[in-house]
């Protein structure tokens, strides 16, 4: 078990390093940030001075080493546009992102799971069809499109919910629902199919035979057994959720770190993009690592494979 964890941990580190190299190189191909920072009447001396200040005059591998040695200490340098430490800018926006991600996760679990159960119980009925159709839409329609449709329908047409910004719980509902829509669909489908497998098991028949009320049959015997794969998938889909939130934050004007990163891409603000991608990929890798370890713990076959 220990060896397995160490192996997976080292693999995780390699993934993070790989991601950081790719981002580091890609963003440097997109243009020269100094040209955006300085007025165009800046002299050549000014430009060279700024390059030196930013460390952009050094060879790219030195720049990378500097970045990575800072990153492991939580120092991502100064934002070119905001002229503030990147770490500060990111952490100012982390609560908003966590609020949205948490809301999305809760909504997707507490709506997706019951719908899946319901669809399994009412198999081959109109309700089942409706839930599965919804799940199909949720899994295939892009979230930014869903978001715009929600804004138009619930915000502009019905006037139920605000269309942009953060503040009250009402502000959270639309973006959280949009961000969680994909996972919700995933959980509903998965719960339904696992539930269908479980419902034909002998122990369910036994439970029913001994006269247990249907509600207890479903919640105590069936649901509990079908939760194992569902919980694993929930763990794995958190990463996907985080990735999707970048777009959702743009659509709903949500002041989180995804938006910080997207805006930074447009202003060629290297340090922010690097910082956010580094942090999110680290988070992603560690969530997956946690799920893997949990899984290995639950299922001994994995760790010896």
């Amino acid at each position: 078990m220990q060896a397995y964890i160490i192996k997976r941990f080292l693999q995780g580190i390699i993934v993070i390093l790989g991601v950081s190299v790719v981002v580091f190189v890609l963003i440097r191909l997109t243009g020269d940030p100094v040209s955006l920072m300085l007025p165009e009447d800046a002299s050549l001396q000014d430009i060279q001075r700024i390059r030196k200040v930013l460390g952009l005059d050094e060879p790219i591998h030195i720049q990378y080493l500097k970045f990575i040695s800072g990153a492991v200490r939580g120092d991502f340098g100064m934002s070119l546009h905001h002229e503030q430490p990147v770490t500060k800018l990111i952490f100012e926006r982390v609560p908003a992102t966590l609020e949205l991600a948490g809301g999305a996760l809760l909504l997707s679990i507490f709506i997706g799971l019951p719908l899946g159960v319901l669809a399994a119980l009412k198999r081959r009925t109109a309700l089942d069809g409706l839930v599965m159709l919804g799940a199909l839409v949720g899994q295939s329609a892009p979230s930014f499109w869903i978001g715009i449709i929600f804004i138009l329908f619930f915000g502009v047409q019905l006037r139920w919910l605000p269309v942009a910004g953060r503040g009250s719980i009402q502000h959270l509902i639309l973006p959280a629902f949009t961000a969680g829509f994909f996972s919700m669909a995933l959980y509903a489908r998965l719960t339904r199919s696992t539930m269908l497998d479980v419902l034909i098991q002998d122990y369910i028949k036994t439970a029913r035979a001994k006269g247990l009320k249907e509600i207890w049959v479903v919640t105590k015997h069936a649901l509990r057994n079908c939760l194992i794969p569902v919980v694993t998938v929930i763990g794995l889909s958190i990463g996907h959720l985080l990735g999707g939130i970048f777009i959702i934050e743009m659509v709903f004007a949500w002041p989180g770190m995804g938006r910080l990163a997207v805006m930074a891409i447009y202003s060629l603000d290297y340090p922010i993009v690097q910082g956010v991608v580094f942090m999110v990929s680290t988070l992603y890798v560690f969530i997956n690592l946690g799920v893997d370890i949990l899984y290995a713990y639950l299922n001994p076959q994995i760790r010896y494979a």
Partner: protein
Amino acid sequence: MRERNYWTHVFAKRLSRRQALGTAARAGLGLAGLSLLGCAPGAAPGAPAAQLPEQITVAYIVDQINNDAHLDSTIMGVAVQDHIYDGLFKRSASLAIVPALAESHRWLDDPKIWEVKLRKGIKFHNGEPMNAEVVKFNTERQQNADFKPRYISDFKAIKKVEVVDEYTARVYSEAPDPTMPLKYIQTGMVPMKYNQGPTGNKAQSDNPIGTGPYRYVKWFKDDRVEMERNDDWWGWQKGMPWEKAIKGPKKLIYRVIPQSAGRMAALKTGEADVIFGPAMEEIDAIKADPNFTFLPNKSGGSPHIILSVFDKKSPLQDKRVRQALNYAVDMDTIIKKIMKGNPERQASAVGSSYFGFDKDLKPYPYDPKKAKELLAQAGYANGFEVVFDHNDPVCYPGGSEYVPAIAGYLADVGVKAKLTPHAASLQFRETSLAKKDGPYGLIESCRGTSTLDIDFIVNQNIHSKGTRNHGYYNNPEVDKLIDQGRSTVKVEERKAIYKKLLTLIKDEAPWIFMFQVTYDFAYNKKKLPNFNPVMWMATFYNYGPEGDAKV
């Protein structure tokens, strides 16, 4: 003087244009808007509302980056600051320069000394007095390299500020500088003692204090800035420039909504009363909607096509060829069809927003026949091939359409322009710094300053020593006029010089002249019938039919 972060405006507009399914969204918005927003109760249609609502919300595209007026030159930042701070001068909605904290100004007999007299008795929000010491302090703050002020390059040529008496300051510059007042429009005055306290200059970033019509309340980053009205603002008092203005709303909120579909939705639902930068595709729907007004406000920005003479063998060396290219393009149709009729045609180096503009100068007419004649005279009867370097992503909305349209018109007269896209940042590096990779032919360029003085355009872009002269245009006669214009402080003299200069530039045709773009707003006309924005700034201290300051 520093370009007012055009890119912030520009990339944000790009975001709005890039959103997916914008068309579907707009169709839905249009329908929803018609049915759902009724008349304000009691207000007869079209009658001006006597009083503003308690709270007004404005939606911009990109957030400000700092509360300190000296550290932020973003579109939204400057608009917010225009409410919290006052400069020695402010712009009116009709783009006049209005004495604000200054009462009057003049150049002494030695035009290198500029004297400004301040209004008496004005206090900062924290009670500190606004006096000549403050002017000195603010000027030196703008020159402090360690502090990294955004407009530092504008203040390089100022040698010192002398405090003559409590309300008189003299600014000494290295050369006569007719644009001195402009520097002090964009220097919102910050209080001196407040910024000499324990946290030093940081105090202003944490909790900004100005003399302005609004007080800062709170900034929720990337979401909104909240301000409350300063009822005691000097500008609304009797005899002051904004005396006739209706006081703005008690609570003024500047929000950030990056996507244009989101801003439109917020306007429709009333979450925002004014939105900045609606997408081009939305303009027709806004115009058709009885609840909203679309306002293309004058800006100082304009695209043009540089006709580079860097390559000594280029056909563009010949003036007749450059003129021919101006005759060849039907710019009026481009404005009407692609730009929705909003921009104003420009005959020469600057448009009507600028000091120095010559209204008598008529633009090149569309005349392909004449273009062909001129090309034939120059020896290019069969046309020629040339590289057309343009911005991608676009620098102004509409760019992805007007650039190919221009290339199409040029093809009609036999000039094959090979479109080569460049990121704005890359173009800067390659054309301005390294004179390699030539020969460049046509270069799309986007220029603008918030200063609205012709000197900033011609001295940088057309003067042979200009730092942004990417086309390497070189004409001693033009240089002489530019130098003359910037070395005298006499307004009438300058006007006469620039009249000559603009006529000469038009004839010389170093560019294909295009148009002056607009800062676009859409706003709720029932709530705000007398909205008076100043350029890109949704201002509320000058509200009302007579709210705009007169000079």
